[in-house]
């Protein structure tokens, strides 16, 4: 923890200096970890985007044979899995890591070491999952991995990569969530009461609570699947008293909150960006917080609306239909509050605000189709058709991804110290959003016209040809938009102008520190005097925050290679489990894998690193006030 008590100064160790790549691998700094999350998330986002483009080539024409059925099934499985687990959430984690401590006036997160562990388990889990492409075929059971389709074929290892890769990546997600919860509860600056938290911090807090409960459910389901596939358990096999529906219930108890895990941070971002660019405080702050909490709570009460056609009976279906419709109420509150925040404001159109503002109508469109889907008997028609695909892409692209891009342009100056190019940014916004609507709007009608989802092809003469072509063209426009973003990023890194500390006339405390923020964030912990802490100071004619403490030594944690090694150990053991019964036609490989030597080696690395962490104490180091003054000079 980033303490700042001078009395501890005498116990401090010396600072460990790492440079270059070792600096990034060993870092426990929330800002570097945030950037790594962001970079890895962006990489997986591009990967899953390419997968989507391949899918859309295949579906461009009826009976197209660009890829085989098996490849198509692997592509859509990995597109969904990668986007949800390895792209969207890590991108949000990137922002959260960088921004949350700054927004609450803290010097780091509560558990810097754990933070690094979460990052590296996510990265190694993601790599493990994606290596399946080169090792005999990717997962092919859909991102929802329904048994018994996902469990009966043990000759194809794809779903083993899914269950073990996601399990390892999931550790990272859980660890990260616990860290955010503790950080927000314990490390707020003096005066930063809960009802003065910026909305992005609130959204992070509630999202983390959802992750804590939802990802545990997923972990259990994945363990069942792993045991069924690798250890001949029979959790989902009816012949042995198992039940395939068990997976679906547990999966959606995770899976529906997962949807809110992806949208609530976007809600938080909107509630930061819209007030900033309207120069107006958020309308109805307390009802916004209440709506967030209510959505989070109701999110756990509605999982079975993904299972209306499973045959749960009228009572369950009716109950879950009503519960699902209820979620529209807090969501509506949020939408109107955003509109009223802009009402009477002075709206500036930057790339960030364009994404944030256009989020409102696109998200409403995704939301209303959600209510339509909640009507169970109508869902018997919509279920598993392109109507559902259109709905969740409106919510996830029109919601989460628009949020991610709004945040990208909004916080890029803070994270990287450079201003992204606005002209290129606006081109990116228009091409991407037009492409987005072209791609997914027509899919509503494809679904209503009876086109099932997850089909690798479709027969001609059903009236679906034109819509599919339009959809594919739209997808390529989105692709071109993202290329413009990448050009913008490369251009900015090389030639972009340096960012001032407060480029947008911001309202919250991340804009009080330099861009990028210094290692210790705040020289002196700030005193928070109200909601929109920085804006309040500005309105009172102050240049910055009032310090809440004298200038004194700042306690900092030392970097450590152990989180990296622990994750690497899990990664190696994961391979050992996947291939424990595999015949390599090679005596050495068979000896290593079939005798579980690889598993033991990986686990030894994991537990050895844990033991090292426990036995060898590293109390960190202090930055002395003299050094801080030198820097200022």
């Amino acid at each position: 923890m980033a303490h700042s008590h001078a009395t501890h100064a005498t116990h401090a160790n010396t600072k460990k200096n790492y440079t270059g790549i070792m600096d990034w691998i060993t870092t426990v700094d929330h800002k570097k970890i945030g950037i790594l999350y962001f970079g890895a998330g962006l990489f997986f986002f591009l990967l899953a985007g390419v997968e989507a483009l391949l899918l859309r080539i295949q579906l461009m024409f009826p009976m197209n044979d660009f890829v085989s059925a098996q490849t198509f099934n692997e592509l859509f499985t990995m597109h969904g899995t990668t986007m949800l687990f390895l792209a969207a959430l890590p991108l949000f984690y990137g922002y959260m890591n960088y921004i949350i401590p700054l927004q609450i006036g803290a010097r780091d997160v509560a558990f810097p070491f754990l933070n690094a562990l979460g990052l590296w388990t996510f990265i190694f889990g993601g790599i493990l999952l994606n290596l399946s492409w080169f090792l005999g075929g990717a997962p092919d059971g859909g991102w929802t991995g329904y048994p018994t389709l996902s469990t009966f074929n043990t000759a194809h290892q794809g779903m083993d990569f899914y269950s073990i890769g996601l399990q390892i990546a999931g550790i990272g997600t859980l660890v990260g969530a616990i860290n955010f919860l503790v950080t927000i509860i314990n490390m707020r600056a003096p005066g930063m009461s809960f009802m003065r938290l910026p909305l992005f911090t609130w959204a992070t807090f509630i999202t983390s609570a959802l992750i804590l409960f939802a990802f545990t459910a997923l972990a259990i389901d994945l363990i069942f699947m792993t045991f069924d596939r690798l250890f001949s358990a029979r959790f989902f096999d009816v012949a042995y008293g198992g039940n395939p529906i068990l997976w679906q219930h547990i999966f959606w108890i995770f899976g529906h909150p997962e949807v809110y895990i992806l949208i609530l941070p976007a809600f938080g971002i909107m509630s930061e960006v819209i007030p900033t660019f309207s120069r107006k405080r958020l309308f109805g702050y307390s009802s916004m917080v209440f709506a967030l909490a209510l959505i989070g709570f109701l999110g756990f009460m509605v999982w079975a609306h993904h299972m209306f056609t499973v045959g749960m009976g009228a009572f369950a279906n009716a109950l879950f239909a009503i519960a699902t419709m209820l979620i529209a109420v807090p969501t509506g509150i949020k939408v109107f509050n955003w509109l009223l925040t802009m009402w009477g404001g002075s709206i500036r159109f930057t790339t960030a605000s364009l994404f944030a503002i256009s989020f409102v109508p696109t998200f409403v469109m995704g939301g209303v189709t959600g209510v339509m889907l909640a009507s169970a008997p109508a869902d018997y028609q919509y279920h598993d058709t392109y109507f559902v695909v259109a709905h969740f892409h409106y919510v996830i692209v029109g919601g989460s991804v628009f949020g991610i891009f709004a945040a990208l342009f909004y916080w890029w100056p803070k994270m990287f110290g450079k201003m992204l190019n606005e002209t290129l940014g606006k081109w990116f916004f228009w091409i991407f959003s037009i492409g987005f609507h072209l791609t997914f709007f027509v899919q509503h009608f494809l679904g209503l016209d009876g086109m099932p989802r997850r089909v690798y092809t479709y027969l001609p003469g059903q009236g679906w040809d034109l819509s599919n072509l339009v959809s594919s063209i739209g997808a390529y426009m989105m692709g071109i938009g993202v290329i413009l973003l990448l050009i913008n990023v490369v251009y900015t890194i090389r030639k972009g102008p340096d960012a001032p500390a407060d480029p947008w006339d911001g309202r919250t405390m991340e804009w009080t520190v330099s861009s990028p923020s210094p290692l210790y964030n705040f020289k002196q912990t700030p005193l928070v005097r109200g909601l929109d802490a920085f804006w309040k100071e500005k309105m009172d004619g102050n240049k910055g925050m009032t310090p809440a403490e004298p200038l004194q030594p700042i306690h900092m944690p030392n970097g450590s290679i152990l989180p990296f090694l622990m994750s690497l150990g899990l990664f190696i053991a994961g391979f050992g489990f996947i291939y424990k019964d595999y015949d390599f036609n090679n005596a050495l490989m068979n000896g290593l894998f079939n005798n579980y030597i690889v598993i033991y080696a990986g686990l030894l690395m994991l537990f050895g690193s844990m033991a090292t962490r426990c036995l060898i104490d590293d109390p960190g180091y202090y930055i002395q006030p003299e050094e801080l003054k030198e820097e200022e000079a």
Partner: protein
Amino acid sequence: MKHRLFSGRAAALFAAFMMLLLAGCSDRPSPINPAAPVAEEQFKLILLSIGIMLIVCTVVFVLFFIVLVRFREKPGEVKIPKQVEGNHKLEITWTVIPILLLLILAVPTVALTFALDENHSDVEGTLNVQVVAHQFWWEFNYHDLGVYTAQELVVPENTRVQFTLDSADVIHSFWVPGIGGKMDTNPGITNHMYLDMPAVQPDPDKNIYVGKCAEYCGEGHALMDFKVKVVTQDEFNAWVDSMRQPVQVSEAAQRGEELFAANCISCHAINGEQPSPSGPNLKGYANRDLVGGFRPNETQWVKEWIRSPKDVKPGATMPAFNLSEEELDALVQYLFELR
């Protein structure tokens, strides 16, 4: 009555939306072009929900555009707007009105959910059919009539059919979009669903409804289609009778019969009074429109199918048969005499 609720603009928008909706669709039966009572009830609910949602969208979009036009920053002007905390009356309004709108949708939703869940299997006049889904084909068993078939569900017009839904392997979903919604077939857990069949149309093509597997079930999922043939009660009785007759083939098909006995009979029954061992029952095959569920039932495609089923339909579980051209011709001739 409902029209009075709409403003002129909303009504115009609704009309435009509905036209767009219908323009994209052929006259093929579908969820939004329902051909039978269950689908019609579901379509009414779909329309009601679209209507309510269009009201919501219109309100939001109109507000949205007013905001964008009126409150954009004027060039050169840097003003600090009034910092409004909130407004209880407004916030209560947009909490209560959505609740009322949702109630309008919730009542028929609950009513129809319970109505569609009823089991009519013991009601006089109901036809009971067991559906068994396989990777990647459909088995239809009329246990009450002692008739067993596959891929083509023959049903009498204006009849209520109570389906018992089972699966032989993984989860599938039984769906005839023009006739009604879908229900999953779960291995080891039997589901029930009823559908009401439409009346016979003068145009014979219109009496055939496409059925689909809606739950992703593996490689051949996209092509796991089946057909529902709606016939008159007399035609149905005649079909049942024909299914009970033993297969009789001409002299010319003798060679094919031998080949069938040597290669095919271990999986495919040709007796309509028995469930088939593992592949589709081929009794009445000559009358089917499709081979493999989606290709026209013509010599060329049947031969292609027997030579290599997986190339026609990925993931098909039938093995490839290495038969000579002459043997294939003989086999096809025999198949085309299976009435």
